[in-house]
């Protein structure tokens, strides 16, 4: 409770309001401080006061044999994950709790979510309300069942103050390609910082997976906790609605040149990664893959297997894996040589085989963090490019999408 009150002071709130649920990120091991903290809570007899889901942990508890790192670290990671269960949290271990039907809040619901991509999704795509909670504050709110009445919990703060207009030079083929969305998110994060922006010019009814990709990138390159997309997100049926009838602080245009620049930055390999560049692995499912995405991976594989020596790893939630097992999808993917990882992510847990070759991903967030976290070179591409490249063992590019530059 002291932490919640501290949070209220930082946010300038005058009172606390009740929440219906929480999503806790503190269960990921970052060293002994994370264990010291939760053990203090356990000693105090704390239990969560609202239904609480858990974010990813340090390792895949269902497939521990995939761990290639120090076993002692795995044990500490496992201990921390268990400690949060003992506080009454549900062992969901996913960074995409919004993909679990049982824990998805409704429009306008007040919640306390941590995990930067989940925060953005919650506010933007669902229209439920959370501030940008981090570790420790998340579990503190879950135990108290209350949050400061401030920031994005209040309607006024959800108003867009920055309008980002997509320029007419963005080709229709690119609008229709998955690779646009994580790249657009990178630009959004850079442009917006921590401000709420509204994107104008996307086709109406953008798919959830694409909005998820925008949010995950924007929360990596910036401190974005909410964005609007006119015609796609619930608080932006129109531009005027996103602006809540007010005037924006700033209006800017995003053109093809800026997008291409952001796309190129996501690839860290010196000289870029043209067609034919050898790769060692492909990592998909950051944030955790939905069933729609798992099915898309199977479709793109078209019965082919990754090339010899190339790993194709997909991270997802354990409950979605269970559904994929039920419909036979998981068995078929594994039969083709796809490795399915749950409870964690390939840039957190040491699961990738050691290789000097770059790793390809369709995730802006993965491209942002993996080089620092696990010391790999990254090649960015669409899901289709990633899967085809895995099969060929070298980068394959769909030149029709981004044009020649």
């Amino acid at each position, binding site marked *: 409770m002291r932490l919640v009150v501290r949070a209220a002071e930082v946010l300038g709130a005058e009172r606390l309001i009740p929440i219906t649920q929480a999503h806790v990120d503190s269960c990921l091991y970052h060293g002994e401080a994370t264990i010291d903290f939760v053990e203090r809570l356990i000693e105090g007899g704390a239990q969560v006061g609202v239904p609480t889901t858990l974010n990813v942990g340090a390792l895949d508890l269902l497939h521990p044999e995939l761990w290639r790192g120090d076993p002692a670290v795995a044990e500490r990671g496992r201990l921390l994950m268990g400690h949060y269960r003992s506080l009454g949290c549900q062992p969901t271990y996913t960074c995409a709790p919004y993909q679990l039907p049982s824990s998805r809040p409704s429009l306008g619901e007040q919640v306390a979510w941590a995990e930067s991509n989940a925060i953005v999704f919650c506010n933007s795509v669902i229209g439920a309300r959370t501030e940008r909670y*981090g570790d420790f504050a998340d579990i503190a709110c879950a135990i108290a069942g209350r949050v400061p009445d401030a920031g994005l919990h209040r309607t006024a703060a959800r108003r867009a103050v920055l309008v980002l207009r997509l320029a007419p030079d963005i080709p229709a083929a690119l609008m229709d390609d998955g690779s646009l969305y994580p790249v657009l998110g990178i630009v959004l994060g850079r442009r917006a910082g921590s401000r709420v922006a509204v994107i104008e010019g996307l086709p109406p009814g953008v798919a959830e997976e694409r909005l998820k990709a925008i949010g995950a990138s924007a929360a*990596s390159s910036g401190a974005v906790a909410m964005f609007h997309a006119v015609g796609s997100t619930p608080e932006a049926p129109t531009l005027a609605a996103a602006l809540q009838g007010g005037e924006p602080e700033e209006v800017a245009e995003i053109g093809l040149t800026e997008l291409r620049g952001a796309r190129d930055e996501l690839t860290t390999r010196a000289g870029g990664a043209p067609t034919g560049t050898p790769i060692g692995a492909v990592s998909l499912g950051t944030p955790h893959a939905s069933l729609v995405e798992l099915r898309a991976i199977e479709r793109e594989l078209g019965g082919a297997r990754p090339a010899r020596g190339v790993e194709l790893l997909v991270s997802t939630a354990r409950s979605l894996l269970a559904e994929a097992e039920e419909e036979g999808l998981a068995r078929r993917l594994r039969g083709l040589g796809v490795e399915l990882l749950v409870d964690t992510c390939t840039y957190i847990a040491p699961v990738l085989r050691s290789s000097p070759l770059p790793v390809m991903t369709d995730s802006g967030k993965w491209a942002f963090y993996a080089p620092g976290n696990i010391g790999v070179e990254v090649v960015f591409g669409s899901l289709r490019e990633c899967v085809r490249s895995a099969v060929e063992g070298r980068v394959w590019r769909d030149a029709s999408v981004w044009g020649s530059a």
Partner: protein
Amino acid sequence: MRGTVLAGGVADGPALRLDEPLSLWGGVDPGSGEIIDARHPQRGTSVSGRVLVMASVRGSSSSSSILAEMVRAGCAPAAILLGEADLILSVGAAVADELYGIRVPIVQLPSAELATIPDGAAVMVGERGEVNVR
């Protein structure tokens, strides 16, 4: 200068102006304090013992844990001066204080004042948010 206290404490150290925002998680090695973000212009620089000057924040909600772990490991910044309020770092500092009795003051200053602090200058941070640059 005097700013808003986001986490209390007294500290002094050489300023480290960040050219770009930094996410502590994925951006700093919590065992050494070194910047590991591959895209950050100051990659390889250590934040340990420095007064971090950061105009804006970005990135992961795990940064609270990373700050607390850096305090435990003895490689945390001496203080953090921010251009905007940040709950994630403030809570990390509050928890580190509670667990280890070591305080990393965090003070929010107006951007224009923050911009006047030169890189490397000796900075003293006081209990009430006073920031003195020598």
